[in-house]
């Protein structure tokens, strides 16, 4: 079950600084949506709006509306349920200091799942989906923090999948990870597109070109252009700035 995300005139401020300036865009369901832009252009903030982890930042002010399938995320009854509908993968791999099994079982357990066989099945499914199962299937008791960087990133992906998200967000997932793992994860994403909406934020323009169906280009907290990948990466995108950025003339 995938979801459709809409940003309407969203402005986010951290104290006095503007992080997102009047952003309006649509993220269609069952697609990979890429977000590119130089550093500090608001890409991470945009992701944090979707699952409301913006709430944890002090002095944050938000204007505008973010909806998932028409439902306003800032008016949901249970923000924890909302967060479980969205999976998040960060730039730096994070294995929780629990066993690999408990890492993946963490979110379902917090949501109330207790049945051992259900958990076993879920853990295996998610680790397989994250292309990690074969490497850890005999070592499920191993501490998550002792895995290699690439394995921990796939573990994070498995954790993100463990609560069956409708939207999967990945924030520069490959910067701390080797090329082999990166391409494994990219293959996984192309398959997962069938089941969920995927949002990929990346500094690697070529990666987004490979993966995304639609791309948004952010610069200095503003949305410069959004459209099909072929258009933004073509010779004639709507803005000169897009052309320059994609070709590496700045950023």
């Amino acid at each position: 079950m995938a979801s459709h995300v809409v940003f309407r005139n969203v402005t986010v401020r951290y104290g006095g600084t503007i992080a997102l300036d009047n952003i309006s865009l649509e993220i269609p369901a069952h697609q990979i949506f890429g977000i590119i832009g130089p550093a500090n252009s608001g890409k991470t903030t945009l992701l944090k709006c979707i699952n409301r982890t913006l709430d944890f930042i002090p002095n944050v002010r938000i204007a505008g509306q973010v909806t998932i399938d028409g439902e306003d995320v800032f008016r949901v009854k249970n923000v924890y349920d909302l967060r479980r509908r969205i999976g998040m993968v960060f730039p730096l791999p994070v294995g929780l200091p629990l066993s690999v099994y408990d890492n993946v079982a963490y979110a379902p357990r917090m949501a109330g799942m207790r049945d051992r066989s259900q958990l076993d099945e879920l853990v295996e499914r998610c680790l397989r989906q994250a292309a990690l199962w074969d490497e850890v299937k005999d070592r499920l008791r191993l501490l998550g923090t002792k895995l290699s960087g690439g394995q921990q990133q796939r573990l994070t992906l498995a954790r993100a999948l463990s609560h069956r998200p409708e939207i999967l967000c990945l924030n520069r997932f490959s910067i701390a990870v080797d090329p082999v793992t990166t391409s494994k994860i990219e293959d996984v994403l192309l398959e997962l597109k069938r089941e969920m909406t995927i949002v990929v934020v990346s500094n690697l323009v070529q990666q987004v070109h490979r993966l995304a169906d639609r791309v948004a280009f952010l610069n200095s907290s503003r949305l410069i252009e959004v459209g099909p990948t072929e258009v933004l990466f073509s010779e004639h995108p709507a803005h000169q700035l897009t052309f320059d950025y994609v070709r590496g003339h700045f950023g």
Partner: protein
Amino acid sequence: MSVEAGLFAPGPIERRKRLIERAAHVTLLLTTAALILPLLAILAYLVVKAWPVLSWSFLVENPKNYMTAGGIWAALVGTLDVVVLSLAIAAPIGVLAGVYLNEYARENWLTRLVNLAVVNLAGVPSIVHALFGVGVFVLMAGFGRSIVAASCTLAIMTLPVIITSTTEALAAVPFAFREACWNLGASRWQTIRTIVLPNATSGILTGVILQVSRAAGETAPILFTGAVFYVAVPDSGLASFFPYGLRDPFMALSYHLFTISTQVTGASDALAYGTAVVLIALVLTVNLVSIVFRVRLRSRRKW
């Protein structure tokens, strides 16, 4: 020492510099030794003077004959009881306060005030704690001179250090873990309960154990709030382990050392030295436990 000759032979300035360096090294070494060795010698002297009475029966017998003979059981058990009670009060409050400061408090004036209060509380002299304890717990609350009044006084005294150890132990848990849990839909408290606190437990325990030793050794806070010169305590049986009711005054090892050395006539020196040695041994053992804990903590790092 490499052979230096010709071009690299030390000149007069260099030679003087090295001489001063050597002299400084020796002086500093001697100063440090001068601080530590006499203390170790004193401790050894205490053990030697205490030797005639040191035995198992010294620990488990009650004082006899107007404190000129017998053992220290009543005082030993009194110290154990009051310390356990005071930590039962201080540890939960202190740990939760530490959780508040590190996990919930935002950067505002209220938090700064709380931090200031913790530092201030840590700086209150022990006799002032006694004054407070007398006025509030003994008199105002009506507990009288009792274990409960003394425990409350000791609890307030040990609270700030427990709070600080807790905040430090929690801060040592990487932020990335919390962020990962929040993104998985866990609430703040769920995250703390399942990931943060379990991984901070060793650090917290180290701090709490240290306060155990401090509470056992302090005299001033229990001076007027509950510790008394003599209480008749059963010699054996289960009642001898919990001889003091909560509203009863009690004997304590630290206060007993004070009275037996300054206020009891006719007691042999060995009894006083013996009491001192037992108190030191108790305190040092607890501290050693906390040090061992800390060392094992460092080696069993989970990340």
